[in-house]
């Protein structure tokens, strides 16, 4: 725990170090502001004295007033500059640090393996980038300022009170102010709790509405509208109540604060007035003291704020720190075959079995396949039969329990340099995920250098070229939320083009034609024969039509190889494969022959 905190602080300091100059300038500006701030009341005070002295005899002219006023003006200008300075330097530094942490965090996440991303939802990771970095920034910005400012102000104001005004008056007038610190700490806790309760009530309300609107069909079907309304009213009432709880506290705290300041001022008036009448104090000192009292309010409040902001910042820093501590569990082996710069594309599965790290049952068991470079391996089977796992293993998103059971060109996948492996395999994943970028950029995703000609060739082979050209912006069309919405089939074809453009020795299609209509599918397969000559292909599919020309067909059932052979061989067997084939034929008939209408 202690060591953890120490390490966290070390992490923060590592970033702060790069901005030491900014911090120093900022703090210097802050000190100037604070020093001058206490000067202005003193100046107005001395002006008052000058005036009062002039009134009670002596011949006063404006020449006596001018210098003081100019000093006030000068101080005011300096304060203005100082205030600008500290905001600019310290907030700027905090923002820079936030940016640097953000960049490093993303870079670090890129190194982590898929297992981490499966275990941590995107939304949670996002929260680290937004909420946590924000409170770290606040800690390194606002809190730094508040701490310095409040303590310096406190010392200076009290010093000025003691030094320039009156010791007794100071001691008496300050007593109520101390109450603010205690009140702050006490009410701060209560306030925090009530705020949290209010927030929770609001989330509950949001959740309820969210759920009811999602389940509106049930509400209507079971005529629950009136009852639902009553339930909502309760939640609504709860929100109001929790809001009022906060309000009630505010209604106490704010006037109370006002009251405390007022009491200090009354003490100043009575005791200070007395001292003035007794001529132990000048009128100017009396006026200045009034200002000092109000100046004390802020440092008193700040103490509580610093404490809570600091604890929040440290908690966030801790969460960020934990990510930085995370180590990738798939990395290049120490004894990786660095002599290998490219793969040929031979794939061997040698009694391959695999269980997910968090799983219990094996997802794949005892699978053996031998694919020579340039051959086509097809894998069919139901959802959950382990087809995609095979792809994950080839891509080395996970390592099998026996690393030697999956080999490329005879070398265990885990022994290949990661970059060689990733460059050697072009994959079309199942979800055909595209980025919100132009179509061209999406296809060029894996290209070291963008080549318009190659992109168009790949798009043609994937049968998406014509659709792209049909968009007003052509290849420059944005996809995703801000651009056009592509259909599932179009997305898959763009994803295919993205893989084809890489011309890798191994091409994997993970159920990549499921949303493409049959005719287009046939066309794409035809094109692949041409374009991918010599490339090893691994095709995972549901439709038999997609894979019947493959050199090897592996039928998976519950992670086991149920059947294995060529299309002709498997048809002969009259097993699972044949059954799938017959069903798909019948479905086809039904779709085409069911009706005479369009």
């Amino acid at each position, binding site marked *: 725990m202690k060591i953890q905190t120490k390490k966290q602080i070390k992490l923060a300091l590592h970033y702060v170090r790069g901005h030491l100059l900014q911090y120093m300038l900022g703090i210097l500006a802050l000190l100037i502001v604070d020093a001058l701030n206490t000067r202005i009341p003193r100046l107005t005070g001395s002006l008052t004295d000058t*005036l009062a002295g002039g009134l009670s005899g002596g011949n006063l002219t404006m020449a006596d007033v001018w210098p003081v006023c100019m000093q006030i*003006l000068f101080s005011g200008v300096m304060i203005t500059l100082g205030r600008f300075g500290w905001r600019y330097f310290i907030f700027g530094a905090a923002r820079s640090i936030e940016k640097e942490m953000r960049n490093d965090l993303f870079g670090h996440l*890129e190194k982590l393996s898929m297992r981490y991303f499966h275990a941590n939802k*995107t939304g949670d990771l996002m929260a680290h980038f937004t909420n946590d970095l924000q409170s770290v920034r606040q800690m390194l910005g606002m809190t730094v300022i508040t701490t310095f400012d409040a303590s310096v102000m406190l010392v200076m104001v009290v010093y000025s009170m003691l030094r320039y005004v009156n010791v007794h008056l100071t001691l008496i007038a300050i007593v109520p102010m101390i109450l603010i610190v205690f009140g702050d700490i006490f009410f701060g806790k209560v306030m925090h709790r009530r705020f949290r309760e209010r927030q929770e009530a609001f989330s509950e309300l949001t959740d309820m509405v969210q759920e009811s609107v*999602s389940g509106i069909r049930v509400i209507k079907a079971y005529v629950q509208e009136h009852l639902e309304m009553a339930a909502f009213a309760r939640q*609504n009432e709860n929100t*109001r109540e929790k809001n009022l709880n906060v309000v009630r506290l505010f209604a106490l705290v704010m006037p109370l604060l006002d009251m405390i300041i007022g009491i200090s001022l009354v003490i100043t008036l009575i005791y200070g007035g007395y001292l003035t009448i007794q001529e132990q104090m000048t*009128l100017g000192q009396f006026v200045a003291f009034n200002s000092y009292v109000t100046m004390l309010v802020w440092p008193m409040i700040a103490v509580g704020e610093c404490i809570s902001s600091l604890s929040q910042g440290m908690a966030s820093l801790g969460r960020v720190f934990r990510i930085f501590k995370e180590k990738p569990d798939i990395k290049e082996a120490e004894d990786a075959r660095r002599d290998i710069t490219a793969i040929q594309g031979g794939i061997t599965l040698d009694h391959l079995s695999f269980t997910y790290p968090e799983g219990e049952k094996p997802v794949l068991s005892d699978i053996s396949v031998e694919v020579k470079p340039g051959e086509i391996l097809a894998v069919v089977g139901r959802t959950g039969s382990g087809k995609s796992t095979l792809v994950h293993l080839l891509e080395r998103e996970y390592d099998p329990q026996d690393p030697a059971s999956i080999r490329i060109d005879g070398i265990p996948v885990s022994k290949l340099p990661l970059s060689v492996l990733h460059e050697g395999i072009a994959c079309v*994943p199942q979800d055909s995920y595209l980025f919100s970028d132009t179509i061209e950029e999406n296809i060029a995703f894996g290209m070291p250098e963008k080549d318009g000609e190659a992109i168009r060739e790949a798009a043609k082979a994937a049968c998406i070229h014509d659709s792209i050209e049909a968009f007003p912006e052509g290849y420059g069309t944005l996809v995703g939320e801000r651009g056009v919405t592509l259909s599932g089939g179009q997305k898959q074809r763009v994803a295919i083009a993205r893989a084809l453009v890489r011309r890798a020795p191994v091409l994997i299609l993970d159920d990549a034609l499921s949303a493409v209509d049959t005719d287009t599918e046939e066309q794409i397969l035809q094109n692949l024969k041409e374009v991918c000559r010599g490339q090893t292909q691994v095709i995972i599919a549901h439709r038999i039509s997609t894979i019947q020309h493959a050199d090897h067909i592996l039928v998976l059932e519950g992670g086991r190889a149920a059947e294995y052979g060529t299309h002709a061989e498997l048809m002969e067997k009259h097993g699972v494969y044949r059954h799938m084939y017959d069903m798909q034929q*019948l479905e086809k008939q039904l779709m085409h022959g069911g009706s005479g209408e369009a």
Partner: protein
Amino acid sequence: MKKQTEDIAYEGNAFLRLISYMKPYRGMFALCLVLVLGGTAMEILRPVIIGNAIDRYITGEEALSLTRDARFQGILIAGGLYVLLLLARFLLNRFQYLLMQKTGQNIVYDLRGDLYRHVLSLTMRFFDVTPVGKIVTRITNDVESINEVYSNVLVKLFQNGVKILTLGSIMIALDVRMALYSFLLVPVVVVLTVVFRKLSRAAFQLTRTRVTALNTFLSEHLSGMDLIQMFGREEQKHKAFCQKSEELYEANSREILINALFRPSTYLTYVIALVLLLLVGSSQVIRGSVTMGTLYIFIQYIESFFNPIQEMAEQFSTLQSALASAEKIFTLLDTRPDIPEENNPRILDKVQGRIEFDHVWFAYKDEDWVLRDVSFTIEPGERVAFVGATGAGKSSILNLMGRYYDVQRGSIRIDGVDIRQLSREQIRRAIGQVQQDVFIFTGDIAGNIRLLREDITDEMIRKSAHDVNADRFIERLPNGFSQHVTERGSTFSSGERQLLSFARTLAYDPRILILDEATAHIDTETERWIQEAVERLMQGRTCIMVAHRLSTIQHCDRILVMHHGKIRESGTHQELLALHGIYWKLYELQLLSRGAG
């Protein structure tokens, strides 16, 4: 395609309509304003007391003419007065603040209730095209931002307006010349504030856009991390991220710069005003036309005079964004349900369960007919199944019976009465609908069967669950019927969800049963339970089902085969098989897929 009514700008005056919500609370509100006046007066009085005390008892001719004791006494009286004022102010502020906030909260409570009631009254067509998130935002965040108007902005605007006017008047009354000098810099503050508002708003918006851009990039690339790694794009993507990050940083820096310039510069204006006042004031004091006390009051007032001006600018901008929310809320409130409710619905004493479709044409959108001229009659107690490929129009028939949508042509009758003449409540009480996908509400299992009807006892829940075999899986749960479940968090299989839905339907004991069978794969054991359950559910009810399972279909009195929005074949299982048509093919397909399982 999904053009939402909400995107259309609100036509009326949102501000006046907001004000109209205050009507029931106008008494309280008026009281608030009076209290604000009182509070402001006291705030203004405060420096006067001290200023007075200085003039009369501490310094000045009048004071010097008194004995020390008399002077001190005077100060004590002034102090006492000040304490009284403090107490009064404490009570007044507290009371006024509470009253104002309560009023605001009450209005928000009313508005939120109205809005939710209205949303519940809207029809499925509305929910089909409006994203859930949008509706939720209206009811939660948008209403919340309006709260600010009632509980803060209106009163504060009033308060600050009063403050400025009173302070201004007092200053003029005290000394015209000094007052005028004090006002000299007011235009500067106003201009500064307005310009800053504009700049900072623009900067803020730029930051927002960049934050969104960065977050979109982030969420997209975290989701697509597998691709980045597979394609070896780590370095490029990191560069792209840093670029976005840098852009955000630049926007942030701009915001910092603007803020860093503004706040100190208003301070500078204040200092200049102060110096000006001191110079003018001093010369007046020297000439004897102004007392020291007056100068003190002016020094105190000048700061309190500048603050409200800046605050008002802030309050106007809050009002602006609240009005934007108000417009969205009112637009939603003005959305009329597209299925009118009959004002004087006919009442069926006892629903028999006879259903007629009479030349029904129906489309979800324009002329995309989903049902074309569909006619059939189902007698009370009859069991009828609809079969057909996806998109043939089966589910639409079920939707129309519950009057979730209205037909474009033709009519639908229950027991001979057009359903448009019945209240929706009556129709839906008569019909029990088992949906394909069962929505699970947060709560426990019992709550999911009973829904919100408290009159359904635990006993009835247990019995319903037992009758449809749902208790078999419920009892396996660690907490049985009180097991906590959520929509996203529950791990029920689709078969279990179906059973739960059966129990829900049975508990409500409808005359007509509509069953939309789940297509998902269900394990054999659950499958057997479901079959038994369906049989029990159907007992003594008119049953209409969209069925996928052979067993359910075969036991039906009649099977209607849908194809492209029309009824193409009709008859019993045996009759239809003999036809060798669509039904026969569907049947063969099912047999095959059975074999595979």
